[in-house]
């Protein structure tokens, strides 16, 4: 994408975020029992969905890297993983902010919270792995293999924690209700806006990785000439 395209994209995403924020704060009907704090839901839930999309991009890019061996797939894999971790960090921060006034506690070892937390740790360890392998090609291969294992592990993590939790007393959670149609619409708008943010962040992170790659190549070239 050229720089004009990037600017246009940035403006479009900024406008979308503005619309989403307005919709979540003013257009969506107030929730009956939870009141204002419930509106955090319009960013909390789409952040999780967007994080999954980013992890899926990382997974697909890892497979593409192992098959094609072009560095660009590795750049996309790290961009997806890092942006996914950022979104899941938002999920893990906005969750307790909502939970404290509604449940009266910041955190509970409920199935969804626990599995989200494990997922977050799994991808943080992916990012740490990347910092610890010096050779770029080894880094790309090892992290691609780990990234694929991690993504395949996600359903196992979710099912295991789900079954583990449903065997125990469930914490009281106000789930299972239905959403007002306007709430769904706002939720969807917010998700589209966050997907835009994700695309923008991945684009920039990818470019950063490409530039780093270029710098590495240049320093290797300089060493050879010296």
């Amino acid at each position, binding site marked *: 994408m050229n720089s004009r395209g990037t600017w246009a994209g940035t403006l479009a995403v900024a406008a979308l975020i503005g619309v989403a924020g307005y919709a979540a704060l003013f257009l969506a009907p107030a929730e009956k029992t939870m009141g204002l704090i419930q509106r955090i839901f319009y960013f909390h839930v789409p952040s999780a969905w967007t994080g999954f999309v980013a992890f899926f991009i990382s997974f697909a890019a890892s497979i593409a890297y*192992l098959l094609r061996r072009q560095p660009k797939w590795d750049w996309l894999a790290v961009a997806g993983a890092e942006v996914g971790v950022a979104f899941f960090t938002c999920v893990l921060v906005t969750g307790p902010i909502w939970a404290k006034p509604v449940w009266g506690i910041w955190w509970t070892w409920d199935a969804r919270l626990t599995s989200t937390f*494990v997922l977050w*740790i*799994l991808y943080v*360890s992916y990012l*740490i*792995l990347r910092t*610890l*392998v*010096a*050779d770029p090609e*080894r880094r790309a*291969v*090892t992290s*691609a*293999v*780990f990234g*694929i*294992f*991690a993504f*395949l*592990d996600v359903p*196992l*993590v979710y*099912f*295991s*924690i789900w*079954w*583990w939790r449903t*065997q125990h007393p469930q914490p009281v959670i106000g789930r299972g209700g239905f959403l007002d149609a306007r709430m769904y619409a706002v939720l969807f708008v917010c998700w589209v806006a966050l997907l835009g943010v994700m695309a923008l962040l991945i684009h920039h992170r990818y470019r950063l990785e490409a530039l780093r790659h270029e710098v590495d190549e240049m320093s290797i070239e300089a060493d050879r000439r010296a």
Partner: protein
Amino acid sequence: MGLARAAAIILSKELRAEFRTRELLNTTVVFVLMVIVLFSFTFDPTSAESRRFGPGLLWLAFLFAGSLMLQPSFTREQANDTLAALRLAPIPPVAILFGKILANFIFLLFAELLLLPVFAVFYGLHILPVLGPLLLVFALGTLGVTTAGTVFSAISSQARMRELLLPLLLLPALTPVLIASAESTVGLLGDEPALPQVWTFLLVASDIVFLTATWLIGEYLLEE
């Protein structure tokens, strides 16, 4: 040479190397024993509590032990660059991984079986009536631990801070195996022994996912 035969040869090499020194087995057994003892210091459980928490603790100890004992699987090959020699062998590269997975599976399972009676004595558990299903759980759980562990050991052996990195990669990925093994063991050692099918299913599913992924993409880790 076929995959199975090549893996069997690697396996016999690993077993020979280990049983000459028994380094891995000795350290693993003592490590798990120590964790079990430390647990009773820190929590001072009553006998009912230890029956409830014991199996989970045991699996946690196995998992930590696994994340430490699987490290040498590949670093041991680095001292004399023997992995390069293995790579040159006219065998499918993934056979090296499968041979090592099998060897580690045997090591860890062997250590677990040595520890099981000790654990039963310490915590007053009746293992004999449920020995069959218990062995099945141990085998399935250990297979999951060692499959992911051996692959991740191939990854961490190529990184810095590898001793710290392997547990970091392995422990979150093994959450499903830990939960399923611990819950199955709790079920079998409880007052009304039963093997919860859902956990056996999850263990089998984890093993299949890990083994299939290893078979498909494991060999990339062995490239020069």
